[in-house]
């Protein structure tokens, strides 16, 4: 099939106003939140139903053209980078909340539903959708399924896979599977569980049945101010060691504090080494006791000050500051690369010292804001992407940080995914046998590797004919 004929066929499926081909339109789709590598797709389509996705996929399948799904493009590891071009299937027009069942505690949503919409819809009834990535105002639940997204509240409530019960899933040959469902413990393999986090390499989720969670009755949100990052991380260990599972435990270091303060004027102390946002939630009863124990942990670790949000408005502002801290980074540098590593919680002091050392070594400023309770670090490397040498140094520093996470017994990604960014780490994390097993599993879903090619796994030789070379990171 010629490219023109494929485009004609796609246009017939989705309609004239749901297909982009002009270079200027495609530019928006050349990357996601990982901006170091770029490549435009040949076509972007915006299907509005599972049936349309099926027809698009079948057309690509028959034409032998690679394709990939895209939600809001907030991925930070290049998960939606159209390596080699091809057809991008944007799910953002599939945005209906199809069913909410409070009694049985599930909701059915289309893949393009924005994460926060679901919680907004549920809030008046006292429920919410628990996974809350920082990008929740923009990111889609379909994208969350692909990356198994986390967020600040996952320490207590779990990540996406703990909340997805079933999927409508289009395989790369156009066949549709309905996995799982609104009931638990269905007989057979947990296909839903293994599809979540497969980063679009198995196929395309068009609908998800998700668990909905009772909202906490009350919160206690504390801000601990510390002279040093070490004191803050020791506090984290002590809180968890005391048997308390906070709703969230977020660390912000001095550099990020400065940016956030300039943006939001929360009143963060600019001379502090780090602050911890510590939140317990649940029933009103017993919450003060937990909050007091947490405050005690902080004071024992030389907290200069422990503040408590005294109103819902104060709490909301604190969380706004945390969740939009990435936006505030624009005040520090014109580009940034947000890394995503994990270490055992007790290794946090060590890894943060290493990050400082590595930053100094490569002359790259690094800010830290992360989910401390999970040991999930997010060093943010600041640079100017117009300066090729800086780009190189950012990549080198990133790799050194991630290598150190591995040395600590951790992982190179806690919630962003492997995408294209971290493919080189896969052989460090896994043996050839491990990787072969994963590829065997992929072959059950995506035998021709036509859906999201060149993602997650190192490829032996080129398997796709690139229609566009794009910019790949040169290391």
């Amino acid at each position, binding site marked *: 099939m010629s490219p023109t004929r494929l485009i004609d066929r796609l246009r017939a499926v989705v309609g004239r106003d749901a297909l982009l081909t002009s270079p200027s339109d495609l530019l928006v789709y050349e990357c996601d939140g990982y901006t170091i590598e770029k490549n435009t797709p040949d076509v972007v389509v915006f299907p509005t139903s599972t049936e349309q996705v099926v027809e698009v996929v079948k057309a690509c399948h028959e034409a032998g053209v690679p394709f990939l799904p895209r939600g809001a493009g907030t991925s930070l590891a290049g998960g939606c980078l159209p390596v080699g071009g091809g057809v991008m299937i944007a799910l953002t027009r599939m945005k209906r909340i199809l069913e909410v069942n409070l009694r049985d505690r599930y909701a059915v949503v289309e893949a393009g539903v924005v994460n926060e919409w679901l919680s907004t819809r549920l809030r008046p009834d006292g429920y919410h959708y628990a996974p809350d990535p920082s990008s929740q105002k923009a990111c889609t639940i379909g994208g969350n399924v692909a990356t198994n997204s986390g967020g600040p509240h996952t320490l207590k409530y779990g990540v996406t896979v*703990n909340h997805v019960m079933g999927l409508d899933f289009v395989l790369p040959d156009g066949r549709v599977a309905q996995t799982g469902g609104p009931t638990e413990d269905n007989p057979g393999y947990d296909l839903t569980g293994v599809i979540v986090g497969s980063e679009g390499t198995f196929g395309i989720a068009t609908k998800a049945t998700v668990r909905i969670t009772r909202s906490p009755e009350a919160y206690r949100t504390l801000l601990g101010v510390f002279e040093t990052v070490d004191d803050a991380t020791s506090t984290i260990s002590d809180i968890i060691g005391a048997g308390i599972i906070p709703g969230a435990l977020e660390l912000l270091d001095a550099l990020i504090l400065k940016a956030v303060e300039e943006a939001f004027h929360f009143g963060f102390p600019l001379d502090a080494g780090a602050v911890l946002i510590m939140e317990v939630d649940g029933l009103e009863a017993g919450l003060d006791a937990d909050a007091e124990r947490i405050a005690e942990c902080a004071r024992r670790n030389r907290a200069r000050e422990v503040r408590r949000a005294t109103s819902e408005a104060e709490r909301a502002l604190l969380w706004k500051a945390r969740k939009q801290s990435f936006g505030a980074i624009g005040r520090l540098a014109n580009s940034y690369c947000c890394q995503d590593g994990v270490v055992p919680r007790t290794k946090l002091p060590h890894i943060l010292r290493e990050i400082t050392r590595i930053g100094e070594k490569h002359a790259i400023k690094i800010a830290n804001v992360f989910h401390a309770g999970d040991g999930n670090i997010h060093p943010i490397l600041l640079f100017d992407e117009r300066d090729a040498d800086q780009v190189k140094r950012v990549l080198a520093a990133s790799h050194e940080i991630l290598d150190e996470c591995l040395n600590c017994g951790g992982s190179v990604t806690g919630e962003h995914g492997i995408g294209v960014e971290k493919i080189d780490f896969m052989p460090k994390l896994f043996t050839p046998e491990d990787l072969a097993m994963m590829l065997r599993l992929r072959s059950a879903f995506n035998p021709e590797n036509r859906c999201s090619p060149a993602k997650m796994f190192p490829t032996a030789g080129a398997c796709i004919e690139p229609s566009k070379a794009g910019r790949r990171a040169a290391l």
Partner: protein
Amino acid sequence: MSDTCTIDDFGPLPLRRPATVADLGETIREAAAAGQAVYPLGGGTMLGRGLPPTKPGVAVTTARLDQILDYPARDMTVTVQAGITLARLGNLLATENQRLPVEVPNASRATLGGAMAVNVSGPRRYGNGTLRDYVIGISVVNDQGHEIKAGGRVVKNVAGYDLCKLYVGSLGTLGIISQVTLKLKPRPEEHALLTLGCGAETVGPLLDLLHRSRTRPVCLELLNAAAARVVGAAAGGGLPEAPWVIVVGFEGNREAVGWQVQQLIREAPAGQGIAVNVLADTSADPLWAALGEFAAWPDARLTFQANLLPSAVAAFCLQGADADGLLVQAHAGSGIVIGHAGGDLTAERAAAMLKGRLATATAARGNLIVTRCPPSWKAALPVWGTPRDDAWLMRRVKDALDPRGLFNPGRFVV
């Protein structure tokens, strides 16, 4: 111990007990080379699950692979070999005031690997989830005899496919779990159980009320009188004499548990013959334990498990349970109903009893499986329930990971 084992009257099969992962791999390679099947087992407590084997082969137990490899308690994770018993694991974690909050019957014999393969769960699943929520790393000896791994040792990790999810509940059909890393929880400061006795007409409204309660139970159990008698006897008392008994469990800090107990008493409708009783702290331990063990009631001739929408539990349980002489336990908040039949049941009567229930369960977006019965009945019973629409994709997964059909042939849905 004997050197053979029988599974569902199939056998005797030679029983291998490798003490190292290398030996386990070698055993698998030898069986594969000889064209034989491999039947994995742990402590053998749930060996009756599934259909009878269909191909000669060897049984392999992981019971000797039982080492504790790493327990960094401050990180709240533990890495163990899969043959460790749940009792030994539980004792280890208790030394650090931690736990894996998943109840597994016969914990002194049941192994972690076996519990994962079967996806065992208990009453606390309503508040604490199931094994899939706790397994963060796994090693499996695959069809080529290689130990492969997925996940890792940190609580948050999305590198590579999450094979942990695939192996939990796969009944040993994709390989033999050799090593597991779990994330753990602190033991709660306090816990309590409330028991409510009521009549049949009140079960549905009461479950609806508990669902809307301001309290946040971690368990919501429903028992009929026959089941309550057995569970109560095992617990040394504590359950009311009533046509139906609801047990509500709370865990948390002292203030939270205390408040919830009082709150639930306030919320329970006055009159209507509802009797409320409270068991706090250690006095509740025997009943928690008995509720967790009852799924494996040894006197059952037939045991089935239905998974339903939680809102469908009351109607499903009330439908002829007493007339059929069933002992019924439901993890009502999670939509799981377990039914036991004892006595002089026949295969024909069992089939008749299950037919309508399977249809009801399937209509309630769920299913029904048989977890225990005489092997000779299995051909006549819906052991794995109604085939699911995604069975073809499961088959593709099985073919990709075990192309020669080495592991547990004939026993699972695929």
